[in-house]
Structure formats: C-alpha cells, structure tokens
C-alpha cells in the first residue's frame, strides 16, 4: 500500500483532524439528519441544457450586448462576499500577495502562508483512485449550513429559476455550493453533487455534466471548475469539484495543442504541446453533453485502471483538460527530490494548470519558471506511459487514434465530415504512434 504524509487542507470550519466526529444532534446546524429539518437555502436552477450547448446552432447572437454581471456570478460573488464579511474564512485571501512569474508561460504564484497552519500531517493512501465512502471521516454533510451558499440544480425549464429561500429536501438530495474556508483565490467554492447521497470522490457522467453546466452558467472565462481524483491530491473522499476566480489565463489554457482524434459526436481530443504535464484537451462536440460524456468516459476508464488524474473545466465549459498524473505515487516511492518535497507544494489541479500556491516566502520570492516547470514535470506521466494511457482512453471512448493507420499524413483529409473511425481493436498498453503528423498546430 502506498501512502504519503501531508497536511490536509481545511475546507470547512467543521473539519477536525481526521477524528471521527461523534457529536450528533449537534447544535451546529449541519446537514446531518440532526439538523436538516427546516433547513433552507437559495436554489439556483439553471436553464435546460440546450442540445446545441457547445456548438451553437445560431450563427451569430445578434443581441451581442455585453451581458451584465451574470446571474449565477452575482449569486456566487454576493454570497461569498457575505461569508467573507462574516469572517468565516481562515484568512483573507485578497491579502495574499500574488504575481505573474516572469517568463514565456506566465505561471502565477501566490504566497499563502496561512493555508496550512494549525494542521498536522496526515497519512493518505495514494495507490487507490477509487475508495469507498467512509461516513466516519470528514465529509460535507458535516459542514455548517452557514458555509453553504446555495443549491444548484440542472434545470428542467427553459429559463433560469431562482428561489431565494428553498427548503432542503433530504429525500431529494440537492447539489450544493459551499465555501472553501481555505480559499486559494477569491470566490473559492466547492460544488458537491447530491451532497446527501454521500458519493465517494469518483467521476460519473451526471456529476461531471453538472459541473460543466455550472461552468457554462457562470459565463465567465475566468471562473473554472477543477477536480482532483484520489491519488491526485484530493483529500476528502466525498465527491466535490472546486472553483474560483482568477482573471487571467492559466498557462495550461495557453499551451499549444495538437489534434489527435475526433469522436463520432464531434468531440475533438488534442494533446498539449510544450507543457510540463502531458495532458489531453477535449473540446467541441455537438452538445455540451457530448463533450462532458466523452470526458466522463475517459475518467471512468482512468478510474478503472487506477490512474490518478485532475480535470480543469475552462472557457465557460467549452474546453476540458484532463491530466493523468503520478506525483503522489512517485512521492510514496521516494522518487521525488527532497527540494521539491520541502516546498510542500502539491501539484493538484490548480498547480498543474499553472497557478502555484506557495507556502514559504523564500519559494515565492525565488519563484521562477524553471522551478514551476520542474515541479509540474514531476507530476507528468512519462511519454511512453502517456501513450499507453491515451490508448486506454481512446479505446474506452470508442475511437482509435487515426494516426495509427496513417502515420505522417493528415487525418481530416480522409474524413472531412469529422466522422470517426470506429476501429478500436487495440489492446491495453499498446502504444500509439503519433510521431510525425502534419496536423495543424495551433500555436500560441
């Protein structure tokens, strides 16, 4: 069994040092059976998922007037600021110094000395991506209701619906948005799908779609949702996504990419070039659901193959990055250099995207592109392993990498309609050749 010791992030003021919490009927207004009766919370139900979500049918939206600060955005920001002014956070994240690291990639560094205080290191098992939910450990049914901002629902209606004071229905487990009391940027929240169902940290199609939906509904390219699997620096085994505002592009989003394949549903899968963590980019698709489902298929495949990964949902839900990683595994095997470990920076989704939250002043002052790159490169799969993993993913999604058959030549010439080559007879681990394609590079 592989384990690492690390300081867990305190996401809730009700999170104890991994001690089973015995108190029930607790008077702290949690989401447990003890307190849920009569609990109320705003409910935001977004409009029905349009069939043509990602690839709009309309050629131009002629009412292209700049929208006002969007409704969901106002709700997130307003409720978050309210909790901020009520003093629910462990520190004022806007007082944490932040800067762009000089260089070509634009890594963003933040000095955050408060995030990891008052916690002792805990052991985490890192060799199992799927673990059963354990109700004795901290989970989001134990947070106080004041840490919840609103219920979020993928709506049935053609319009956004909002109910400022909606009872929480324990029979119909709501998805909720809660604050992270250790924010790494302004507006740091957690999306907890069907919180009362106590789902373990595991991607399923419905939950990922909900997350994509929230990213789209927030309608701000600087509000991204992220996900860490177990073994890729999730510390709480209760299904959750994270999100916050950072009004600049992440280096991951700026990385050039090379198209690998397009699925039957028009989802284009590319690999990132010249980025320290080998990653896949999913975009397009005939609908938002196509895009989300392709990523879910890939994630389920990774989970079943016990490969830890991170997800970044960006550009208002139009682009989804998938980053398989192996940092924790290396760390457990003692293969990570002491200098990297000393920084105590864990390459979770935000770090991998290029937002480095540094705990020590000296690391912040001396932050350089080389240092950031070195840390992230440590998290990346090797080229060979990445190819193996891609083969698994493409098989799971039901599309083979066309370059396999047509090495060195171009793909979409054969296939102008974007229809997919259904052949997928590759066996696990079979490496894909993707050497000298002349596929169009989208350069920075």
């Amino acid at each position, binding site marked *: 069994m592989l384990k690492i010791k690390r300081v867990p992030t305190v996401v809730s003021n009700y999170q104890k040092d991994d001690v089973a919490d015995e108190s029930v009927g607790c008077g702290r207004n949690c989401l447990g059976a003890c307190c849920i009766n009569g609990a109320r919370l705003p409910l935001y139900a977004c409009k029905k998922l349009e069939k043509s979500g990602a690839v709009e049918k309309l050629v131009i939206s002629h009412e292209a007037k*700049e929208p006002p600060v969007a409704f969901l955005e106002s*709700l997130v*920001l*307003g409720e978050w600021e*309210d909790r901020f002014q009520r003093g629910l956070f462990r520190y004022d994240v806007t007082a944490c110094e932040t800067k762009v690291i000089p260089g070509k990639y634009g890594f963003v560094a933040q000095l955050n000395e408060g995030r990891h205080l008052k916690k002792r290191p805990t052991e985490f098992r890192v060799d199992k991506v799927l673990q059963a939910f354990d109700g004795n450990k901290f989970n989001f049914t134990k947070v106080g209701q004041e840490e919840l901002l609103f219920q979020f629902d993928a709506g049935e209606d053609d319009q956004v619906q909002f109910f400022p004071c909606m009872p929480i229905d324990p029979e119909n487990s709501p998805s909720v948005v809660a604050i992270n009391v250790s924010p790494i940027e302004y507006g740091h929240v957690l999306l907890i799908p069907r919180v009362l169902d106590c789902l373990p940290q595991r991607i399923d199609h419905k939950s990922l779609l909900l997350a994509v939906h929230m990213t789209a509904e927030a309608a701000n390219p600087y509000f991204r949702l992220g996900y860490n699997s177990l073994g890729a620096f999730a510390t709480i085994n209760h299904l959750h996504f994270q999100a916050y505002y950072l009004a*600049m592009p992440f280096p991951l989003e700026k990385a050039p990419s090379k198209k690998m394949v397009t699925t039957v549903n028009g989802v284009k899968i590319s690999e990132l070039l010249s980025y320290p963590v080998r990653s896949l980019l999913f*975009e397009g698709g005939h609908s938002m659901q196509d895009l989300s489902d392709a990523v879910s298929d890939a994630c389920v495949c990774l989970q079943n193959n016990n490969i830890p990964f991170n997800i970044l949902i960006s550009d208002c839900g139009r682009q989804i990055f998938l980053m398989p990683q192996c940092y924790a595994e290396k760390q457990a095997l003692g293969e990570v250099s002491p200098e990297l470990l000393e920084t105590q920076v864990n390459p979770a989704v935000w770090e991998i995207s290029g937002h480095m939250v540094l705990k020590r002043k000296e690391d912040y002052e001396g932050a350089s592109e080389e240092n950031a790159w070195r840390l992230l490169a440590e998290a990346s799969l090797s080229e060979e392993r990445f190819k193996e993993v891609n083969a698994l993913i493409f098989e799971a999604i039901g599309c083979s990498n066309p370059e396999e058959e047509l090495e060195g030549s171009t793909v979409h010439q054969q296939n102008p309609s974007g229809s997919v080559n259904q052949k997928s007879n590759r066996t696990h681990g079979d490496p894909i050749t993707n050497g000298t394609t002349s596929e169009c590079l989208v350069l920075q």
Partner: protein
Amino acid sequence: MSLTESSKSVFTEEEEKEESFNALWIKEALDELPHNFTITDPFISGHPIVFASLGFLKMTGYSKEEVIGKNGKFFQGPKTNRRSIMEIREAIREERSIQVSLLNYRKSGSPFWMLFHMSPVFGKNDGKVIHFVAVQVPISRREHHRKLRNVSGDLSDHFGSCRREVCFGNFVHQDRALPLECDDDDDDDEQGLEDWEHCEASESEKLKAVEAINNVLSILKRYIELSGRLVCGKRYCLRGADCLSSSLVISLGRIKQSFVLTNPCLPDMPIVYASDAFLTLTGYKRQEVLGQNCRFLSGVDTDFSVLYEMKECILKGQSCTVQILNYSNRKDKSTFWNLLHISPVRNASGKTAYFVGVQVEASCRNTESKELRPETKQLSVVGAVRVAVRSSFMVTC
C-alpha cells in the same frame, strides 16, 4: 507610439463645439482610408467600437449604426477559434499589439477568415491607453483551398490550412477582395471543426495589416497635433483616471450596478472610477465626479453622524453599510436614500488600493421574490470589483 496629449477619447466627447468639430474632422479623414478597421474605446463600459471604416462596413455588411457601440465579440460566432479570442483578450489586458488569424461572421451569417491586427493607442503625457485600433485584412485562402480540393483532392491542400499561403491576387484594392465567400451551407455543416481551426495569412497580407495600422495611427497623430491643446484642457478628469489601467476599466465596465472606486492614497480620497449606473443614479456626468470626494452627494439634511461613522470605518480599513440621504443632480434635483456599502479593496500585493462604494437607492429596493436579495447584489459588486482589482497587476498606488 505616443499620440495624444491626454487620456481622452478623440471620438466620444461632444460637449464642446470645437471638439465635436474636430471629431468630425477626424472621422472624415479616417473615412478616406481604404482599409477595413475599427477603433474601440476601453474607457466606455463594454469596450465598444467608436469608429468603423467604410471598408469594414462593406466587408461585414453592417451599417454604421449597427456597429457603433458594439463590442468586437459581436462579429464572432460558433466557429471562431477560442484560442484566438483568448489571445486577443490577453493582448487587450496587457495593452500590447497582436496579429492573429480570426474567423468572423458577416451580417448575412457567412463566416470569413481575416487577419486581425490590433494595436493600442497611448496618450502622450501619461502613457495610458486611450484606444485600440483593429485592422482586418481578409485572408484570401478559402477559394484557393477549395478549388484545390475539388479539383485534385490532393493531400497538399490540407497543408494549406496551416502552411503559409502563397501570395496571390492584387491586394491594393483589398476593400472588395472577398473572393472567398464561404456561404455555401455545406461548408458549415459537413466539414466539421477541422477546417475552421486555423488559417494562416500570407506575408503580403501581414504587411498589408501593418501598413493599414500605420496609416490609421498617423491620421490619429495628425489630428492630435492639431487639437492636442484642446483635448488636454480637462485636467481634473485626468487626475481621476490616473490610477486605472485600461484593462481594469474594461473589467469594471462589466459591472452594471452603481458603484464608485475611491483612492485612499490620494489626498482627500477622490473618486477614480464611477460606473454608468452611478451616473444615472446621481445625474452627474463622469467628468463632474472623477477627482471629487464623495461628500459632494451630501446636503443640508444629510445626517453628519452617518458621515462620521463612514469616516471611522474607512480609517480603520473596515467595511460598513449605512443609509444616507444623498442629493442628486437629476433634472428634479431630487434627494434619495442611499443604502451605501463601503469596503476596502486590496490589489495584487495584498495592500488596500481602493475603497469601493456600492449604492442602492432605498426606494428602489425590489422585493420580488425571484431575484437576488439587494444585499447580495450589492455584495456581488464588491466581489466583482475585488476580482478585477486583484487581477489587475498594473495597479499603482
């Protein structure tokens, strides 16, 4: 390049006769240029187009009225490359020029590739961006591309989508150089995304864009030289804009509610930003409020203990919400009860750079149950301002 004497649009201020005359003059001069270009003003909410050349209108099929006031986004559509949009957004944020291929849409709905070349225009005195000029050179690729494919089906035509195109055609009259009507519908649906991903302009098209930019800039410069003194007249307006970068102003412009930013580092804590909704609420013009301390909204019946309370909070660096009687400059000179929230706002270094004041007119507080509570709306403005200021790395204080 340094063009103007002050951080002031050369297009949009029309209060003084001379100025509107000059504005007219410059518009006429620009209209004579054959290029396709637009000029935008980052200091107007929504970063709208304030000038569009005749060539541009012809190319896109829109009338001037349909285009003025629109954001550049107006011309984008589903097949517009997301990466190009991100790059342009970044260039605007970083106030630098950019040249990138972009797929835009005409009024008819037909998409076309063009080379987008944007350049900021800086004020001479303070080095602030006052405008962005964006030249658009249509890329003569698709017809060529298509012909090749139809005729030969040769693989090489695929390379065309990413390889530098050979120069063909006469570019001197590029105004009507649109041989590449892509309006057959099969184009849209059957080719999938691939053909829409990238289209590289030829060297001559790139030169064309640079030349056009230079021509536009030199006209702007000439205009400024003729009228510079006049534009420079309003000092106290400048004082207000001193601290804010165009990128911050663009971010703040997205926030549609009434608020002001004041700078506690300047003497008497003047207003450095006022939203459009604030101007509507109070009835003042922007140049009347920039540089002023907020107390000009008070009057004889304003409760001075409330003013004192606010002052105390500001000194302590705390937030506060008060209800205060304010005097407007609206036609009826009416007073109104202002539910005012004030919060300090930190910049990227974690230091307090501004105070934000968010006004809600008490009588207008909606009670409709399907809306956000007014308090939440008010705090959402504070949040949006915090995000904008924190991310604006160019704040100086």
